[in-house]
């Protein structure tokens, strides 16, 4: 489903060039749960950004379901992110001024889903993550684990094919971290959502079907 061929990405500073990704090749099949590990600065986040079409790559090809992403314009990329990709961040990135239900509704609203359907789907997800009673709470009124569950609910609201998780347990205590991983595993197995997760915690990475290591911008199996 996802195929990266010879992907390279270099960041340019003032007379400094940093090669974040070097001729990287990757194939991820439907329903895979992949963990990417690596040290800080190894290019994990850059890879996730490229996979989530949030950053451009300098060379190589990126195919998603056989479609060349390089051919997409900004509008198509935005739609692609909205429909096909779900993001889960280390620091949750919920909108502080919105309630849990409104945060979950956000990607649905961007997909122009009607209000009633939006609400129904948001409550369905809230029920799924066990936070129905927190529907009208703002992120500041929730614990870290609860916030991450809301963030996951938001990420899967549009039934994406792929969930990209960047250190999803990084800001959580151990117990909450494992709860989140259990939930992600369940999503992968029941909903067949492909998950690509970046982590530096081997215990977390073990939830994945296979683990890849990223070292100096290159993948090592």
């Amino acid at each position, binding site marked *: 489903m996802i195929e990266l061929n010879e992907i390279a990405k270099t960041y340019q500073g003032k007379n400094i060039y940093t090669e974040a990704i070097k001729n990287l090749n990757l194939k991820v099949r439907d329903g895979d749960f992949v963990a990417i590990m690596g040290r800080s600065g190894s290019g994990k*986040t850059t890879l996730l950004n490229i996979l989530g079409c949030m*950053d451009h790559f300098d060379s190589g090809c990126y195919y998603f379901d056989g479609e060349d992403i390089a051919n997409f314009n*900004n509008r198509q990329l*935005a*739609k692609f992110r*909205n429909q096909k990709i779900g993001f889960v961040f*280390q620091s949750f*990135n919920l*909108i502080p001024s919105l309630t849990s239900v409104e945060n979950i509704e956000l990607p649905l609203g*961007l997909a122009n889903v009607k209000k009633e359907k939006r609400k129904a789907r948001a409550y369905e997800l809230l029920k799924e993550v066990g936070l129905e009673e927190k529907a009208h709470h703002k992120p500041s009124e929730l614990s870290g684990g609860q916030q991450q569950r809301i963030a996951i609910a938001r990420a899967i609201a549009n039934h994406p094919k792929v969930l990209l998780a960047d250190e999803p347990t990084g800001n959580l205590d151990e117990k909450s971290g494992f709860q989140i991983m259990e939930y992600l595993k369940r999503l992968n197995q029941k909903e067949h959502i492909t998950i690509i997760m970046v982590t530096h915690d081997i215990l977390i990475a073990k939830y994945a079907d296979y683990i890849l290591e990223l070292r100096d911008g290159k993948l090592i199996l």
Partner: protein
Amino acid sequence: MIFSLNQILHKLKCHAKIYVFIVLQIAIAIFILNASLLLSVNSDKRLQELLESNKNEEYYINVKDVSHRSYYEDPYSEELMKGDYLDIPFSNKNLEELSKILSDVDWKVEVTLKLDLLLNDKMSMQSVTAIYSTGTDKILMSKETYEIISNTYKVINQNDFPFTIIDNNLVGLDGSIHPITIGHYENLEIYLPYDMYYQIYHPKHLTNTRLSVVLKNLREESKDILLKAQMLLSSGNSRFLYFLNNEFYETLADFHSVMEDNQVFRFISFILLTITTIGLTGVFVLIINERKKEIAIHLALGSSKIRICLECFAEIAILALLGCALGLSSNILFCMKKLHYINVPLSPSLFVIIIQLMIICIIVVISMLPIAKTVAKLTPMEILRVE
């Protein structure tokens, strides 16, 4: 619906203080601009009405002698001598200049004087009104008047009168011929061509001298034409006072002052609108930087940058429209009280409202340009980098 109105209202609430300031600034600018535009529109309208109602009237520049000569107090005195009034309110040079200024209108100069003429007994006098006019080549006088003019001339100048009547012409010693129409003596007015002013001179009393300007098609510039003529005549001539003696011109002068004031209003509103546009842009660029993370989340979740810009556009448009509505409604309240600025009524005008809405649209669009640039520079990856 592209974006949620609730969200926009929520954002408006978040920056309520600064937004209230922006709205008030826009309202003040619009208020002054509105007043200025209303003045323009209503003064134009009022002016057209005035021009229409004064279309076929004749207008004058009147001349008043301010030299206070007092010889006429004793007409029998020895001082009754020639050339007491050699000065003339319209010199030949002036006439040339005037003809240029007044090239578009029918005009004539009439200098009306009282000639004091000696009767046969040389002790009694007769006053005759002499009208020297550029509007005629003919002389109109009675034979009797001619006799007493020539007689007076002989007495005062100790010379023969330099004109004789031959076959309905007044023939000068220099051979000049002026056609003459013989009138009745009872009518004590004589009409003379303007260029004879220096040839038939006697002690004269300037009574009613004026530049008569018949405007063919009265229009706004007519005021300027006459003002120019008035200024030309007044320059370097302190003996005569030239003035536009017509209500219409007084009204026009008021309009002139309204227009001058209006330029100040326009300048102030222009400055305020410029400051508002810059302020609006600056505030929104700052707000976007503040909301960078939120925008990045939206972008990551599948929002497009165009959509983000549209949301900002909606926010700015709401502020601009609120300011506009506030400014306009306060103006309408003034208009309802039937206020006048000098003599121009400030009646509400749909045209002015449309113009202002257009100006507001331009401000919103101009404000959006740097904002769109700032949004375009944002990348969703920033959200991950801050982690």
